[in-house]
């Protein structure tokens, strides 16, 4: 915990450019990875199935969106629709007998194809205007899913996911879906950590900072914005497949509505734009704050015998949740990742505060 920097001096540039230059960070990452792998055997299934699993899946999706928003600086208000395209195409492929591994890729490709068409259309506009163009995509995709029973699955509008297997393991019960989601999330996370160090990542950063300036130094903004849309939609589609097979097991149009898009944007922003770790914090806050606040309010009301009117008691968590988002942004507008960095920097040199930059 303390004096983590003591005695560490990098002698090669290579060493300093590692993703985790400090050994203590590497150990922490290994420890967390090991804990995540062992989680189904360590903790109650309730926490695996209804906390860890959605955390992992939503984080995968939010990482994809983060590449677009934090990496390339493009707002996307239709990411829920992208996930929906991936979910519906992969489930239809599964029902047609395609193996899950291929259906997952297929869902990703379908989402990437449609997502980058909308991306190309939206290329002319920026900022809030882009947000509006992508919002339009959300409405159009919603409309298509609901209006065609062949897609949505008849009047009941719910499409059960057939039993399937991943690399030979049947995806059922509590553990296999968790590991499938964890593997996908791990791959996406590693990709995101490394993408910033590639030419592609640097080009995106240039486009994000100022697309005209990027054009002047020879980075084609159109090409890289489109690529960013393609990659992030692919990840969205992939997550859609994982989400429907490992978590929902029955998919319905409501699951991919505007609410999901806004939720994901909120996760990325509250976590901290562009930060990989922040995404996980943001997802945890937005996903679990309402649940935990609800339980806390119920518990306090019961234990202290507060006879709150039902309406107030039901809406108090919503209020606290909104207040929490506002509070975090007021305290630290750069998001949870920045708060975490502040804490980390504090302890890196603790107790020698004066040595902080």
């Amino acid at each position, binding site marked *: 915990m303390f004096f983590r920097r003591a005695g560490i001096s990098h002698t090669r540039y290579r060493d300093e450019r590692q993703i985790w230059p400090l050994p203590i960070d590497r150990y922490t990452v290994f420890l967390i990875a090991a804990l995540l792998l062992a989680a189904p055997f360590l903790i109650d299934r309730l926490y695996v199935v209804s906390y860890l699993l959605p955390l992992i899946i939503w984080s995968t999706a939010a990482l994809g969106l983060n590449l677009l928003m934090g990496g390339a600086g493009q707002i996307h208000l239709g990411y829920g629709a992208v996930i929906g395209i991936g979910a519906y195409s992969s489930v239809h492929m599964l029902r047609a007998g395609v193996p899950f591994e291929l259906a997952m890729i297929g869902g990703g490709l379908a989402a990437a194809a449609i997502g980058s068409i909308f991306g190309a259309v939206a290329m002319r*506009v920026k900022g809030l*205007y882009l947000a509006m163009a992508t*919002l339009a995509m959300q409405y159009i995709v919603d409309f298509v899913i*609901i*209006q065609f029973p062949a897609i949505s699955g008849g009047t009941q509008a719910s499409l059960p996911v057939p039993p399937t297997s991943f690399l030979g393991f049947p995806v059922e019960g509590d553990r296999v879906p968790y590991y499938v989601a964890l593997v996908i999330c791990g791959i996406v996370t590693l990709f995101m950590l490394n993408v910033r160090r590639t030419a592609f990542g640097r080009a995106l950063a240039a486009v994000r900072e100022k697309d005209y300036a990027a054009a002047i130094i020879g980075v084609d903004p159109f090409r890289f914005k489109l690529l960013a849309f393609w990659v992030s939609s692919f990840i969205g589609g992939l997550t859609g497949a994982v989400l429907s097979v490992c978590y929902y097991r029955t998919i319905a149009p409501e699951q991919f509505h505007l609410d999901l898009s806004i939720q994901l944007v909120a996760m990325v922003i509250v976590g901290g734009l562009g930060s990989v770790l922040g995404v996980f914090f943001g997802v945890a806050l937005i996903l679990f704050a309402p649940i935990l606040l609800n339980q806390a309010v119920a518990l306090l009301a019961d234990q202290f015998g507060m006879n709150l009117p039902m309406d107030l008691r039901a809406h108090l968590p919503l209020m*606290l949740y*909104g*207040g929490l988002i506002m509070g975090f942004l007021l305290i630290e507008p750069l998001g949870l990742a920045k708060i975490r960095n502040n804490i980390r920097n504090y302890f890196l040199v603790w107790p020698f505060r004066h040595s902080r930059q």
Partner: protein
Amino acid sequence: MDVILLLELAVNGIFVGLMYALVAAGMVLIYKTSGIANLAQGALAMTGAYVVVMLASAGLGLPIWAAVPLAMVVMFAVGAGIERLALRRMIGQPVIMVIMLTLGLEIFLRGLLPGVFGASVKRLDIGIPNAPLFLGELLVSRAILIGGGVSLALILLSILLFNSRFGIIMRAVSDNQTASWSVGIRVERAIAVAWGLSAAMATTSGVLWGATQGVDWSLSLLLIKALAIAILGGLDSIVGVLIAGVVVGLAESMATGILDPIVGGGTRDVVASVIIVVTLLVRPHGLFGREHIERV
């Protein structure tokens, strides 16, 4: 498809569009002074409607003609207060964070008002009779007619405001906050007033919509449509909002009348979306928005 029906749909569409434009005008007011898209505009409309209900029927029992102006005063204070407590601390922060803050505010208000005043739908009677009004063959709904008229009047009023001394101050602030500061304009006060006025306008739209649908949290859903109209018109143009409102209202009404029977589904939002995307492709800054000059 007969002409009378089309005419009727057109008239309804235009006036409903005006009512949407009023919500959007509040957003433009804030955007023009501080460059923030206020995602809590729908929630402010809901708050205003709740305040009116509390002042009128359910709470103090004031007559409606007294309750609405009083609520507008209260909401002016609320709007200015929000600016003072939350937004002012965010000056200089990335715009996207500030927008997110307004989304947090939206969630907060949506919890606060139904929580305190009750979640069930509340009746808001502003004394417009529901009885049908026939102009020859043409049926026009009084509520929509009056709502559209009031909205038009308020929007015109805010155009006038922008040409007054105070409007010039606001335009200066929106052009360049630092420069305005240096010539002695009180930037914070201008932004606070913009928030106050916007909240008061939101109250009116909350009342107009609440009179038809009742008052509950769903009034905050006005946000999405208002955002679409504001962006179509150009986020910094009140005239643009007026025209965009009419265009969207008309298009939606016509789509419902002509396309729905052919497609067999509600095409309203989709048609509106397509119109917005196409317009943005042709004019990326909205119909009347100012072109933003970017410098490297």
